[in-house]
């Protein structure tokens, strides 16, 4: 995982959630999460591994990986979160233009990552998918969905996040 991306993400998440965000040293994905037949990693097992290592002062723990994630019943996932829980994980693999045979586009990659991280963290705040297309909690199964939906929480979802974090996020 590229350090610069992680550092950028730390600032973005801090700004968006009005929270103190810090990065932890990277950890390897658990080997048992590897699905050899599919050459993918089972995200639920990664979440489990992360939960064993939550710092005492942390409210949420967000994992970011380059590995392509899946759950057994789905061909892929961009990320997974415990709804109303602590941990969330997001994969960069399918957010990269290269995955679709296109030229790399770093600003686009970063924007997608920011949206996906907010989305998965939103789940940890107890949010479900939001019917509003302008909301970052709107369901997205493809990168096109990720690109077209809004980059921020809608008013309703925002209220829920604020009530959980206890802070008013900067607009």
């Amino acid at each position, binding site marked *: 995982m590229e350090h610069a991306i992680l550092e950028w993400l730390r600032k973005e998440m801090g700004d968006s959630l009005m929270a103190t965000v810090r990065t932890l040293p990277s950890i390897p994905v658990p080997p048992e999460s590897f699905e050899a037949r599919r050459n993918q990693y089972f995200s639920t097992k990664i979440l489990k591994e992360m939960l064993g290592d939550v710092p005492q002062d942390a409210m949420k723990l967000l994992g970011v990986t380059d590995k392509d994630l899946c759950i057994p019943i789905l061909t892929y996932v961009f990320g997974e979160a415990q709804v109303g829980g602590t941990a969330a994980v997001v994969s960069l693999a399918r957010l990269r233009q290269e995955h679709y045979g296109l030229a790399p586009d770093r600003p686009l990659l970063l924007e997608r990552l920011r949206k996906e991280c907010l989305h998965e963290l939103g789940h940890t705040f107890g949010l*479900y998918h939001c019917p509003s297309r302008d909301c970052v909690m709107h*369901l997205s199964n493809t990168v096109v969905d990720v690109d077209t939906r809004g980059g921020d929480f809608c008013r309703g979802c925002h209220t829920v996040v604020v009530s959980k974090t206890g802070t008013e996020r900067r607009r």
Partner: protein
Amino acid sequence: MTMEKKVNIMVVDDEEIVRASLTSWLEEDGYCVEAVESGRKALERLPDRNWDLMLVDLKMPGMDGIQLMDEVHKTSPEMLVIIMTAYATVDTAVKAMKKGAYDYFVKPFNPDDISLTIRKIVDHHKLVQENLFLRKELKKQYKLRDMISKNEKMLEIFELARTVAKSSSTVLIQGESGTGKELLARAIHDESPRMDAPFISVSCASLTETLLESELFGHEKGAFTGATVLNRGKLELAQDGTLFLDEIGDISLKLQMDLLRVLEQREFRRVGGSELIPINSRILAATNRDLAAAIAEDRFRADLYYRLNVISIHIPPLRERREDIPLLVDHFIEKFNIEMGKEIRGISEGAVRILMSNDWPGNARELRNVIERAVVVAKGNVVTESDISLPSTSSDANHRTKSLEEIEKAHIRVVLIENQWNIVRSAHALGIDRVTLYNKIKKFGLKKEGVALKE
């Protein structure tokens, strides 16, 4: 924010990992999910909630997905079932769909496919449910038991009938023959607290005075020659229920007086009897006669009229509520489909136009007979113009002033229109040969414009 209404989804799969991951994934989408590991468990949970959808694994030990679906459909035929399978074999997919599965998914699913499909199903399902509900609501308004109408006057009558049903007041129903006077009487009975007691109908016009008397009041053994046993009359049989006196305008003056006494004193004697029998049945009466005119001509007792006419309902003839014709046609087709085991799906526009332009002197009953015939003769699953056979439309009264030639001309014209100007068929119907028909058409100067009805 979260979704408006929780959608209930049951996941049935023997693999723990599939249950867990599918559940959490669907929950993120705001669905209410319950996962069970076998068909048996699924059937147990079925009554717990109003399930909107079941996601069922095809291969499970014990009961497989298709067997489970069959079982579920026995009690909940509307249940939407999606079969999940690990291997996409055309055979199993086809089998599942044939057996009534809504769709099938091959594991692992593309997340986009499944969420879109579920969303589509749920939306569609909601629309279907809403549609069913609205249709029922709509029909409720148009219907009073077996009667159906969307005419404003008729709907007022339905409303009035529902209200008066709750009382025991006498109701006089007037209207031309075939407008549904007996149906309305029956509906009043069925809507009343007396619904579980008998509804007894007497057709006053069909019996002679003495017969009607013993029919109504019954007779003691030996009351007259042939009265070998005690016979309870309709008044007695209708105890606690409703007595419907049809064609009340046709009864004799003597019987009118007897009936008046019964209505006033609420008790009667059997013919030849001395015991006074109390009556507690509700009286409904109907007539197609103009009772006011009959009173003026001293053929009907005014006091009986007032006694019967506590609540008066006048059913308008069908020609004054033509908007009901298509509604009644659909209703009758549905009815005869069931009675005759037919599958007529509807009626052509042309046929409806013919029916709409008729005056229906015999009212809904006549229409029903025409539709009954049409359903019998219809070859396809739609009633068309050629299936409609109307009784000769020109009124009999007009015939009297017409010459034989005029009647012949009018009749040929009607037959030609009925047969869409098909000469062979028309000639056959008229019992003459083709050439004769051509000659008559020429002689009477008949032209094809009547067929405009059809186009």
